[in-house]
């Protein structure tokens, strides 16, 4: 290469660089304007609800950006709201049983029932879910549900054994029973094992003592108390062969990855968690949040919820379930969302084998939590 050509090349490069810098400088105000027009929506939710698989398509279509703050447990959620100024959270994903407390404390806005597909619900209970209405005023819209029962490693516990909570006491799984570290689901299951059935949350002192005794009798079987990640790891690497306090919302994810785990609703009954969307009090983005809730109740949104990467949940609308069966029959089958299947979520409700998760009625949450701390230390 001659010196002249080299020089020409250098000049060209310099020109290119100048052009590039100039272009960036000139377009910067437009880029800034584009960014500025993106609306941020502050979301308070369980882990996974603000991830791209759930909100990505809506963000793209509506030029919004979800900023999630994740919590674990309803009382954790209440505290985060209580300690924040009004308007901090635009959208709140709440466990069904905590909605009434959100409403009582004035943390959520009214919703317009006409905006949502109440005539398409899979079960009548979902249209008038406890605590979601105050008289004729709607405060929260049910989004999805899931079941809690016996979660187990299929190489250690048979499907037949998993039809009873007694599976947790099986000698072969001693030291390998884990707890999701939240008192409510685990103690609820112990209440079911004691035969409290539909009144599992509404127990008197004697029944509460019996629940504590039953729980304590499980202690020597227990190999650990885990958060969300630890529960996954424990089941995945085989450290834990049974897990109390969870259900398909965790084993479903592992099952998709081929792990030998499953969840069953035992004969004593299971617990249903329900997740609902609310609009935070004082939110200035109520319109777009309302649009998002409508989107999540649409067939497309319901399918996204059923396929959610963090943890699956079953559809609550007929159209959502129909679309799931059409676009992802494998997931519909795996999660028993086909009519006539064993453990089909709606059939379980109709048969009375599933009870909605609630908070203790005759004791305080503090009583249950105190006992949980004692149990962990035993």
């Amino acid at each position, binding site marked *: 290469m001659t010196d002249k050509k080299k020089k020409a090349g250098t000049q060209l490069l310099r020109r290119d660089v100048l052009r590039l810098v100039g272009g960036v400088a000139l377009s910067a105000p437009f880029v800034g304007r584009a960014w500025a027009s993106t609306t941020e929506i502050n979301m308070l939710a369980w882990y996974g609800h603000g991830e791209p698989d759930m909100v990505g398509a809506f963000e793209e279509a509506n030029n919004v950006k979800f900023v999630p703050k994740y919590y*674990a*447990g309803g*009382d*954790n959620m*209440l*505290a985060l709201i*209580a*300690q924040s100024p009004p308007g901090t959270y635009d959208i709140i994903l709440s466990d069904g049983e905590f909605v009434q407390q959100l409403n009582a*404390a004035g943390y959520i806005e009214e919703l317009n029932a006409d905006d949502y597909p109440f005539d398409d619900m899979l079960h009548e209970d979902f249209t008038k879910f406890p605590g979601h209405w105050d008289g004729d005023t709607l405060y929260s819209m049910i989004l999805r549900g899931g079941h809690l029962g016996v979660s187990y490693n299929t190489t250690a516990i048979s499907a037949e054994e998993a039809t009873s909570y007694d599976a947790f006491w099986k000698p072969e799984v001693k*030291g390998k029973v*884990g707890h999701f*570290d*939240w*008192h409510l689901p685990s103690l609820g299951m112990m209440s079911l094992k004691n035969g409290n059935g539909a009144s599992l949350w509404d127990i008197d002192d004697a029944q509460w003592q019996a629940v504590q005794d039953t729980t304590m009798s499980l202690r020597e079987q*227990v*190999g*650990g*108390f*885990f*958060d969300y990640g*630890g529960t996954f*790891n*424990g089941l995945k*690497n*085989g*450290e834990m062969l049974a897990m109390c306090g969870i259900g398909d919302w965790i084993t479903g994810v592992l099952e998709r990855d081929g792990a030998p785990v499953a969840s069953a609703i035992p004969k004593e009954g299971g617990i249903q968690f329900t997740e609902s969307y609310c609009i935070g009090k004082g939110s200035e983005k109520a319109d777009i949040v309302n649009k998002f809730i409508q989107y999540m109740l649409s067939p497309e949104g319901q399918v996204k919820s059923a396929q959610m990467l963090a943890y699956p949940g079953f559809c609550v609308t007929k159209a959502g379930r129909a679309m799931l069966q059409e676009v992802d029959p494998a997931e519909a089958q795996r999660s028993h969302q086909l009519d006539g299947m064993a453990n089909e979520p709606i059939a379980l409700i109709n048969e009375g084998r599933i009870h909605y998760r609630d908070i203790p009625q005759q004791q305080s*949450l*503090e009583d249950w*939590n*105190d006992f*949980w*701390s*004692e149990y*962990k*230390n035993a």
Partner: protein
Amino acid sequence: MKRRFDIYAMTWRLPIIFWQFLFFVGPLLFMVAISFFVVKNYRMTEAFEFVNWQKMFSKGYFWDSYWYTIFIAALSSTVAMILAFPASFALAFRASDNLRRWAIFLLIIPFFTSYLVRTFSWYVILAESGVLNAMLGYIGLGPFKMLNTHFGTVVGYLTLTLPLVVILQTVTMANVDKTLIEAARNLGCKPLATIWRVILPLSKTGFIVAALFCFILSFGDFVAPFYLGGSQEPTLPILILDTTKSGQQWPRAAVVAIMMMVTLFTIAFAAIALAYRKGGAK
């Protein structure tokens, strides 16, 4: 002679005093104050009530966690001091200056990475289907349950503290006057007796400081007992989490935190007093 007020010196001293008041004494006083607050509807309310102190002190699980945390932190410190000693001894007395510098540099490297990540990496090693059990399996041993046990907790603590203990022990022993060791050997003192009667007494201060650091770090660590110990039994940091997570009892968590600080202050003062106590001739 009366000391003059030195503006120049105070200019340099004031920022650190100001800093300590702002970020240590201030929050500490606030923590003491909120231990008397009450929680109503998940919200802390200003009050001056002893209910949180009464509640925590009357609970058996608080004392169980308290004594267990002291025990496991002390155990971890003892194990760290024993495990670190041979390596520190070799680095202090056998290694060249160059090798010692490299070794200390390598011991610092773990602190560049996240402690949480280092802790999670133990999952792969300690799991029943993990590396360690696979190796033991080749010689017909195991599998042993190591995760979600006291052993797992101690391994996690050591991940945090062992490099620091090795560094502190090495630096301490490297500064021992070698002529005193040679004198002991020349006068017929056997190797183990030289360690016991010459090196350890001369390294006392550094060793106590190393053990104290190890204890403090272990006592306040949440990650190891939670992720490798499976929360069995819960330590005080886990109890703080439990207390705040359910019911949002920050005032009760403050009681636990104050008890932790009082315990650490007491142990630290006792250890420092012991470290600098002058031993009389016998």
